[in-house]
């Protein structure tokens, strides 16, 4: 579970610029910041209208940025995490 922040367009942010709403969710557990900030989170009881007039009600978690880019960022983040852990373990083993 982590705290994210949503703006007036329900886009997710990892930091609040003092205009956003804090939301507690487990939808982004294990996800990197770039991934999270490419998503839109609509809380229960609220709705968002897409550019073409289609209305979506909360709760909804869906990307607004090209999902392919988000997936690539997450994959790189996981590779970096793996290498970090491997390097740490190598260091521990060498002691």
């Amino acid at each position: 579970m982590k705290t994210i922040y949503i703006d007036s367009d329900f886009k997710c942010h990892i930091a609040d610029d003092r205009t956003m709403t804090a939301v507690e969710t487990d939808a982004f557990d294990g996800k990197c910041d770039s991934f999270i900030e490419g998503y839109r989170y609509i809380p229960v009881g609220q709705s968002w209208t897409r550019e073409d007039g289609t209305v979506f009600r909360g709760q909804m978690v869906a990307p607004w940025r090209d999902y392919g880019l988000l997936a690539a960022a997450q994959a790189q983040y996981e590779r970096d995490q793996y290498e970090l852990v491997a390097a740490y373990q190598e260091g521990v083993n060498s002691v």
Partner: protein
Amino acid sequence: MSIVVPLEGFGGGGTGLNFKVVGGTSQPTNPRENTIWVNTSTSITSYVFSATQPTGSNGMVWISVGASSVVEFNALKKNRLNVYPISVKQYISGKWTDKTAKTYQNGAWMDWAKPYYFVEDGETKTNHTFIGSQASTLVSDDGLLTIKPSGDSYRGLYFSGTKIGNTTFNTEGVFTGNKTYIRIWDKSNTPTDSNFVASAAVDKSNGRLDISAFADGEYFFGFCSLYNETNKIANLWIE
């Protein structure tokens, strides 16, 4: 006989052409018949109708054509040259980017995406797979597909589907639970109750999920609920 042909290099809809391609993020007002509106904030420098990916230049719009089109039109004012648009991409910063488009026909803006039903009138239209190792109960009766998961946690079912220009994933039926969702999964993972990539809660009668940020291609589309909830799906579809 109508045939699908690639067309290249037509610019601003000059003499003899029966259509126009326009860009912008707002739907055009007072459009002519067969105005194709590409929803984009990047200026359109040229457009190509082709069944295969062309060599791109910045701003070029590639309108792919195929037999599944629901917005076919005659490209000529005189004579006949039928064109069958199915999806659109634009070449931006060195790569092709998916865009959505609509065509103005017979007084209305027509979506290009062809609806695809996974469940229609309570009947599954394609093969399904249950989420988790324990099978759920499925009963199709009187226009509704009753699904009751077994086991514990979230369970449900999913279908393999191909998104071509579709922008929403929908369901309608009779839903009694308060933890019921429609979800989409990346094709690279076997769907579980937690590794979805988009999710929308379903209320007592319907649910809708925005899938416009997913590139055209294959995904898993599914319906999940808590193990002790019984739901009745009338329709489950993308459009």
